[in-house]
């Protein structure tokens, strides 16, 4: 893209750019690339006919009047949140708003978006108009419908051409930010909500399905909220711009990252689930336990992170690990056991973070944060929710697909990296354990693991501990996913040359420092393609949760909606719609992966 500029290595200019090959005008391009020889011409002809036929077949399927697309449109709420009660729906919108605020601010702080030439936008609009015209001609529309579509296509093409004309050339070339284009497109979509007729339908709330009295514009429940959401997104972006210009970059980015990490558990377990805390129990039992660990742990870690502590500190850390293990042998609150294991983990890692008073304070604060988060999560998971939904988990549909995918990816990543490091470690016990775990898990199909964790795990749990089905299943999925991730990361680890290890060792870095600063960055950079591919797989495999009776989005599209009395036999439309949703998200992950590769200079340095 663009021209080659002259290349410098060191301080010397190596060569001037070669002369630019002139771009061919369209007719010449077609002639040279599609019709250059008799064989090519026949190939072009045949391929075009095949493509047109397929396109036409596809369009005939979509626009066939027999299709029940209203089954999809009316059940949007079902698709997104299954049976979340209407009275509490404001919580869902709150979650969406929070995510949009974070997105808007992040886009501003990380300078998302680039300048796109207006001519490029015009070009794309022109192409879209042409495609729409083709669609209008091929689809089985009535005459008036064809005319309407053709008019729309011509309008789009005309706008495109106008933009191209006004774009200017060379230095005067006008550019528009990709973010502006995005906002305009979103505004168009939101505006269409106010105009295009959809329906509204609730399921399960009453056994008799209810359709809104006014079949015209979209329910009051969605057109206003989406408009507000769009305004929130734009406002958040500008607020982010303000912050970016006024405040130092690194603290903002660090805070945003922490907020992003906190958002899923807080939104799901505090907002959506709304645990009905028994304040007496919380204040009487949970809070004292938290405070004891917080204060005791912070003191211990402050001592352990002193550079002067040395061997005694390491011995103490291992003893804590032993105590943590022993807590599983006697009846005790689960919180106490988990917090002890957490403390052991922090204690073992403490020597790596040893340093001056500031570093030690940061470590103690980190401990308080993680402890607080864990304690609060455990307490809320174990309290019943005020959101009463018949049939299991409090939410379903796309929310649960996203939730399971995000939690699995976020938790299996560090675990997978740890497993990979253990498998390539020089210490035999870690190596054997990690290899054993990976090989066993890789030999078991995911469905088996999910069924095992949903049915069998409650039998293994100690009395008094209740783990709801989806949480148990997510744990199983995390273990499964981490084994595969470990192998991908191990491939990356093996690509780091021995010289890098030696250089780090020669400069005096400990194994932990070498791994974190030198080996892992290079290993992960190389493993980005398989890692992201795995994440896309995890996202799509959440549909296997249907086996356990969780109402994920594919199950709703495949079974639930075609089971509704007015929409019998609408399987194909709904499954197609669900596929499109999956594709949109998977494609965004792919694009994010490409951006990540470019940013880390993969293939260049």
């Amino acid at each position, binding site marked *: 893209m663009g021209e080659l500029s002259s290349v410098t290595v060191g301080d010397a200019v190596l060569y001037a750019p070669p002369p630019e090959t002139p771009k061919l005008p369209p007719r010449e391009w077609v002639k040279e690339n599609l019709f250059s020889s008799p064989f090519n011409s026949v190939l072009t002809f045949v391929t075009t006919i095949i493509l047109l036929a397929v396109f036409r077949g596809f369009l005939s399927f979509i626009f066939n009047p027999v299709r029940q697309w209203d089954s999809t449109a009316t059940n949007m709420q079902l698709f997104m949140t299954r049976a979340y009660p209407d009275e509490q729906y404001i919580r869902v919108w709150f979650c969406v708003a929070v995510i949009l605020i974070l997105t808007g601010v992040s886009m501003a702080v990380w300078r998302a978006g680039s300048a796109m030439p207006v001519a490029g936008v015009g070009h794309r609009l022109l192409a879209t108009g042409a495609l729409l015209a083709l669609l209008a001609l091929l689809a089985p529309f009535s005459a008036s419908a064809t005319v309407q579509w053709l008019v729309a296509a011509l309008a789009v093409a005309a706008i495109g051409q106008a933009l191209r004309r006004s774009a200017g050339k060379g230095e005067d070339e006008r550019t528009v930010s990709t973010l502006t284009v995005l906002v305009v497109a979103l505004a168009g979509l939101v505006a269409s909500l106010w105009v295009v007729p959809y329906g509204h339908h609730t399921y399960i709330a009453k056994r008799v399905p209810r359709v809104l009295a006014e079949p015209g514009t979209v329910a009051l429940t969605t057109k206003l909220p989406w408009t507000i959401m769009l305004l929130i997104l734009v406002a958040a972006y500008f607020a982010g711009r303000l912050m970016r210009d006024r405040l130092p970059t690194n603290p903002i980015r660090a805070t945003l990252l922490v907020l992003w990490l906190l958002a899923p558990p807080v939104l799901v377990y505090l907002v959506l689930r709304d645990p009905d805390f028994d304040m007496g129990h919380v204040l009487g039992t949970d809070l004292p336990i938290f405070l004891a660990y917080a204060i005791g742990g912070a003191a211990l870690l402050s001592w352990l992170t002193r*550079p002067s502590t040395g061997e005694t500190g390491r011995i103490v850390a291992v003893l804590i690990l032993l105590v943590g293990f022993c807590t599983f042998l006697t009846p005790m609150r689960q919180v106490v056991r988990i917090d002890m294991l957490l403390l052991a983990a922090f204690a073992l890692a403490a020597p790596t973070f040893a340093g001056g008073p500031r570093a030690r304070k940061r470590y103690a604060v980190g401990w308080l944060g993680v402890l607080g988060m864990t304690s609060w999560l455990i307490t809320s998971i174990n309290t019943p929710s005020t959101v009463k939904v018949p049939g299991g988990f409090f939410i379903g549909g796309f929310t649960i697909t996203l939730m399971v995918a995000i939690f699995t990816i976020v938790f299996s990543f560090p675990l997978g990296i740890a497993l990979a490091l253990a498998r390539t470690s020089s210490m035999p016990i870690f190596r054997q354990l990690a290899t054993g775990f990976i090989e066993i898990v890789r030999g078991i199909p995911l469905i088996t693991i999910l069924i095992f964790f949903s049915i069998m795990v409650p039998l293994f749990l100690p009395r008094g501990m209740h783990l709801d089905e989806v949480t148990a299943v997510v744990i199983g999925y995390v273990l499964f996913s981490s084994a595969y991730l470990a192998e991908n990361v191990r491939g990356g680890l093996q690509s780091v040359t021995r010289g890098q290890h030696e250089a780090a060792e*020669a400069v005096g870095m400990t194994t932990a420092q070498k791994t974190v600063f030198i080996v892992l960055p290079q290993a992960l950079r190389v493993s980005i393609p398989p890692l992201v591919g795995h994440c896309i797989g995890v996202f799509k495999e959440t549909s296997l949760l249907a086996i356990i009776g969780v109402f994920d989005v594919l199950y709703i599209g495949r079974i639930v909606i075609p089971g509704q009395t007015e929409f019998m036999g609408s399987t194909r439309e709904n499954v197609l719609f669900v596929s499109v949703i999956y594709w949109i998200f998977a494609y965004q992950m792919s694009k994010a992966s490409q951006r990540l590769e470019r940013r880390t*200079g993969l293939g260049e340095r």
Partner: protein
Amino acid sequence: MTDATPAEPTSGQTRDLSRARDMIVCEDVSKWYGDFQALDKVSATIKEQEVVVVLGPSGGGKSTWIRCINRLEIHQEGRIVVDDVELTNDLRNIEKVRSEVGMVFQQFNLFPHLRVIDNVSLAPIWVRKKPRAEAEEQAMALLERVGIPEQAHKYPGQLSGGQQQRVAIARALAMEPRIMLFDEVTSALDPEMVKEVLDIMKTLARSGMTMMVVTHEMGFAKEVADRIMFMEEGQIVEVGTPTHFFENPTEDRTKLFLSQIL
């Protein structure tokens, strides 16, 4: 620290180091790779501020010996004592030795995902626990000393070989070592770049650093070395001053080697 008046090329440096302390002491060091013996009862003492050049044919054990000194290779027999710390399996000793000994490799081994200035300041920040600002200041000073301060914010892949090797030298110097080990550092460079790296090494030698250099650059050896050690098949065949070594070597194997390269 630039050399304003280049010293006259002499045969090595005529210095009296007999009263300097022992920095590296090797007693009967032997090492095997499987059945192949790479080092055969190597014994040597290197004094403080001494510049020792190790010459010899490929596979003679030079790189193995020098890598044993900072424990990148582990010797099976004999003793190695670096600055009064014996190299054993004790991790504390190894870490202590590595923080005193800087090494520069033939393949540069710069960290490709970090900028040049981060390459140099990484170890002082995390190993010596220096504050970032101080470490970066020191890094810039070192980059100036090796002559490439303007490259500080580039990535290693954007530098030429000679510049990369100079960054590697700066990185090693950032830990303020007392001994510097050079393992054929100019063998992977073009002739024009060899000179720039050798100039840095000469300046370093004249500033009083204890250096152990494995190289094929005879001119450098003649000019800078206090002693030259000739190694072949894992044994030190001959040790002497540059004058002695190049003008009247005693061993036959040394004479054969010199006849092949000079």
